[in-house]
């Protein structure tokens, strides 16, 4: 259960015009501009729900995920996840969550994937029996049998992403944050990843929060979408009721136009 109330977050961004003289000026006097990354964000997500969190680049999706996963501290507002405030009780909180950053790897580059999994077992202090069960399940569902003994650097992107998702779920988290999990994947891998996420949600009632630019992901996985633009939540609702026959892509373009983002 996730409850987010009135979260605000601003970043300072250094700005200067192009050109060497401007660069020189910036040496002595930097001009900062405050950018409101998140502006009064509130929502609640129930246990076992799958939510698509969408919006254009720079809208504040990643910042939200980072606050929910305890990486960033917001300027104001409150957030309760399973009764905890992420940035105050970071260690207790992150035991219950899994995070996949689509663009970054969490596997140890030079060693076979199984070694990474075993190190994760120690990091999360998972009991041996539980670890074996989870590993068996993940290996079967994600079809990792063949690749788990290969060093991560030699895997293809699709294979690696399957391992990344496996690595994020090895400690059986209650909540899974997926930040663009299908970016750059081919059709077969995409569908494999989607089916797996659906499956995990059904089996373990894992709450899934998904950010993506791929509308097929949204269509395949979630019923509810939250639309964010320029740091504000613009819409929070049921996908089906908005579609009315048109495709998801069209719906989203329509929404972006309507809110001028």
């Amino acid at each position, binding site marked *: 259960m996730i409850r987010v109330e009135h979260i605000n977050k601003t*970043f300072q961004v250094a700005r200067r015009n192009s050109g060497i003289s401007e660069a020189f000026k910036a040496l002595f006097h930097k001009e900062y501009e405050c950018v409101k990354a998140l502006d009064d964000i509130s929502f609640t997500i129930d246990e076992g729900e799958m939510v698509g969190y969408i919006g254009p680049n720079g809208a504040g999706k990643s910042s939200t995920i*980072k606050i929910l996963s305890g990486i960033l501290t917001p300027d104001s507002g409150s957030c309760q996840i399973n009764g905890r405030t992420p940035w105050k009780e970071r260690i207790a909180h992150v035991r219950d969550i899994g995070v996949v950053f689509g663009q970054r790897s969490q596997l140890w580059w*030079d*060693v076979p994937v199984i070694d990474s999994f075993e190190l994760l077992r*120690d990091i*999360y202090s998972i009991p041996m029996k539980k670890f074996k069960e989870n590993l068996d399940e993940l290996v079967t569902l994600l079809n990792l049998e063949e690749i788990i003994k290969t060093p991560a650097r030699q895997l293809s992107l699709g294979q690696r992403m399957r391992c990344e998702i496996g690595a994020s779920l090895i400690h059986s988290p209650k909540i899974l944050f997926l930040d663009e999990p299908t970016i750059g994947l081919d059709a077969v891998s995409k569908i494999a990843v989607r089916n797996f996420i659906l499956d995990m949600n059904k089996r373990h009632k894992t709450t899934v929060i998904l950010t993506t630019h791929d509308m097929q992901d949204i269509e395949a996985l979630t019923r509810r979408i939250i639309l964010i633009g320029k740091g504000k939540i613009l819409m929070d609702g049921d996908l089906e009721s908005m579609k009315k026959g048109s495709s998801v892509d069209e719906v989203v373009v329509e929404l972006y136009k309507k809110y001028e983002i």
Partner: protein
Amino acid sequence: MKLYYKYFLIHLKSIFQHKASFLLTTIGQFLVSFNVFLGVYFMFLRFNKVNNFTYSEVLLCFSIVLIQFSLAECFARGFDTFSSTISNGEFDRIMVRPRNEMLQVLGSKIEFTRIGRILQALIMFIYGIMKSNVTWSYGRIFTVVFMIIGGTVVFTGIFIIYAALCFFTIEGLEFMNIFTDGAREYGKYPVSIYGKIVLQICTFIIPFALVQYYPLLYVLGKSHNEGYIFFPILGCGFIIPCYLFWKFGIRHYKSTGS
């Protein structure tokens, strides 16, 4: 501690994947510091003494500093390269794992190639012992051990400060090298030769002299103050303000866009 051991193992496994690269870097490390050794050697062909320290005494001092620095670099390399850990987003990953951040940063990098430099320092150390006429007693042996431990801790502390600064800005931190690589280079000679002011800075601000100059005096028999044996242990206290500064910095962590 158990987790650190596991990190240790995974780095060892990585090395086995790249044997040639490991060997070459290790040999490189060995040769680089051998060069510095030659520098000291040629200088002493011209001068017999530097500020009352003979060639072999300087060698002892230099080799101990080199061991301290290499050990710190071997184990605390994660802090030394922390700016890249932040800029490539690795630190986000550390934050979503349920373990102490410092332990994870320590475990993120272990630089085994520094063995090359430690080996070179050991050779120099043994050579220095044979040449200098130090009569070894338990007290002196302990002092050397304390010096190595204390020095490793002090250098680690400097690396931690450097890393904590990265929470505020990633650019323009090269000046910190004065305290890391610089301290190693200047540490060749007992701090006293640089004058009183430097000695005081190195005693009270960055306790470098506590792990180098004072205990060295005792080892070489230039001073009989037995308190100097424990000065390196005192120097270890440096890690506490470093740790607090790190804790302060982590609250300012801003992450990078993705």
